[in-house]
């Protein structure tokens, strides 16, 4: 039919009732806006977590001790001690798909230096550790294989140690005490800032062997082993290779459970992503319900509008409008209202996301497909909720409609 004529009629009648049109759109505006903002927050959070996990190092495989049930008693995750200092060596020697390996020995320690003390996380690591974490030095040098062999008492510290113990001054060559063992600082790590509540610069690195033999009694064991695969594509293969190597080294027979646990960064990402996705879905549903309520608002107003404009309908029918023409007029009005509401909602959601990013520091991501989806949905809402009032209008009898006060 003459869709343009009908659009013209819809436009002029919506403009004649400007306030009411805007109020009707409000429901749709808020609904669409809420959907987009909620999904944007969800997507932003997801990406945030992803970048955080990626900062662990992309090719990373983390190996932790795990209890196998062979002993009959299953102990808690990571509480058993099965990873050995020599496992690191074995992996380095035997695995071709591995680029860097570092055992990690965690030491709790009060650090004394520069006349004050500070409690920090002290880690014994191999020189490969910087490669695995892509950490760089700001000043000085990192310890080498020779330091590992000689178990020298040297340390590389993060900037928080410098700031808290030495008041931000020069630290190279300074001495600190960890568990009353004196260490000489030979390097300063480049600042990495903090992710969340964790200060990444509050760290002291010492040679793995030094930590194992001089700071902890149990010199055989490491807390974790970090492995870097040669590339992202090789991650799965490297994981398999490391796993086989460790099984051989630990003399596990076929059918026996692993006494270690491998986690890759991708697995971590997946675990976190799926939980944020649940959150996003929940938020989107809540927002969708508000959109539905907005649609009911449109229907309400259209019904009122039909009653209020009964005489107008009567006049149109009297001069020859068919039921279909009247129905289309009201349907198009409803669709135009909700589409316009949808567009405004989209525009507003951009503004809201801007504000959330700039003033609340939240990451928000608006994807193009959600824009088109919500626009389509608001159009459908117009049709769905406009149909009933439009049908009602089209069934009015001309003479009854004309007599309507």
């Amino acid at each position, binding site marked *: 039919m003459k869709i343009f*004529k009908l659009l013209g009629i819809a436009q002029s009648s919506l403009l004649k009732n400007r306030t009411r049109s805007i109020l009707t759109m409000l429901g749709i505006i808020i609904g669409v806006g809420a959907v987009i903002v909620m999904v944007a927050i969800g997507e932003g959070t997801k990406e945030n977590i992803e970048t955080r996990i990626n900062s662990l190092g992309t090719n990373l495989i983390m190996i932790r001790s795990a209890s196998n049930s062979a002993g009959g008693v299953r102990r808690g995750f990571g509480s058993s001690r099965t990873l050995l200092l020599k496992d690191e060596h074995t992996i380095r020697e035997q695995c071709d798909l591995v680029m860097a390996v570092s055992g990690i020995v965690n030491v709790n320690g009060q650090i004394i230096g520069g006349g004050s003390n500070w409690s920090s996380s002290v880690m014994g690591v191999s020189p490969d550790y910087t490669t695995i974490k892509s950490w760089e030095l700001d000043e000085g040098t990192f310890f080498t294989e020779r330091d590992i062999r000689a178990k020298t008492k040297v340390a590389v510290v993060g900037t928080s140690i410098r700031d808290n113990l030495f008041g931000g001054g020069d630290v190279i060559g300074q001495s600190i005490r960890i568990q009353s063992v004196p260490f000489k600082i030979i390097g300063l790590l480049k600042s990495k800032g903090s992710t969340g509540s964790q200060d990444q610069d509050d760290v002291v690195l010492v040679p793995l062997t030094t930590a194992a033999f001089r700071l902890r009694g149990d010199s055989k064991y490491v807390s974790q082993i970090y492995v870097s695969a040669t590339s992202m594509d090789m991650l799965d293969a490297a994981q398999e290779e490391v796993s086989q190597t460790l099984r051989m080294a630990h003399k596990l027979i076929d059918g026996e459970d692993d006494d270690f646990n491998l986690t890759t960064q991708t697995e971590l990402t997946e675990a976190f992503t799926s939980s944020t996705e649940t959150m996003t879905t929940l938020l989107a549903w809540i927002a969708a319900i508000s959109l539905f309520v907005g649609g009911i608002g449109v229907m309400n107003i259209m019904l009122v509008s039909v009653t209020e404009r009964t005489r107008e309908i009567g*006049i*149109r029918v*009297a*001069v*020859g*409008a068919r039921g279909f023409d009247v129905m289309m007029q009201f349907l198009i009005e409803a669709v135009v209202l909700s589409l316009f509401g949808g567009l405004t909602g989209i525009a507003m959601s951009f503004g809201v996301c801007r504000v959330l990013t700039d003033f609340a520091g939240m990451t928000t991501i608006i994807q193009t497909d959600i824009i088109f989806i919500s626009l389509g949905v608001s159009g459908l809402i117009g049709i769905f909720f406009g149909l009933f009032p439009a049908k009602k209008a089209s069934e009015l009898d*001309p003479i009854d409609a*004309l007599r309507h006060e």
Partner: protein
Amino acid sequence: MPEVIQTFDLKKTYPLEEPVHALRGVNLTIGPGEFVSIMGASGSGKSTFMNILGCLDRPTSGSYELDGVKVGGLSRNELADIRNEKIGFVFQGFNLLSRTSALENVELPLVYQRKKSKIKPKDKAMDCLVRVGLADRMGHQTQQLSGGQQQRVAIARSLVNDPALILADEPTGNLDSRTSLDLMGLFQELNQQGITIVLVTHEPDIAMFTKRCVEMRDGLIVRDTPIEEQRDAKLELEEFSGVIGI
């Protein structure tokens, strides 16, 4: 050529607690090119009859043929198309769209026209407004017009679809005698072009400009007489202007 209007024992009863018999059996035949006035006291059923003739309302019983077609058997859509194409209706209460310009009001029937016309709807509507003497009020909204001006917009609207039949319910009810004369001149001109016209009026003077006068009382036709000496509105208008010295 079939008769334009033919009604057989047309009855209309409003089913109230005390049923109102607005029409009690009306038989009327109007041929092509006739110019009929319907007179009668208030409440005698004139508007009820006109609404049925205009295909806006259906009779309780009896039948109505328009151009030889039995209207009773037509669907809603077919009735809408007849109103749109064949009939120009002037309502007793104008029935213009509020907050809408005179031009848009006159254009309205053309919006729903199914057949394509060569002339642009807007030009056609302007032309009709000029004919009723409202060339300078086209852009005015309904509520900005006087009663008489609204009446003329309603008449312009009834002309816009080039109807074969014009039904006018008291078209001169709100007009002064000069404008009434003007309007009757227009109706006479249209009638001379072959359009059949039926108009309701309270004033015997106005009826004198038509060719036939039908009188109703209590839902029945009580008298049906041809006008012996039809008055010429154009001529009288000239005399009228002469008298007051224009």
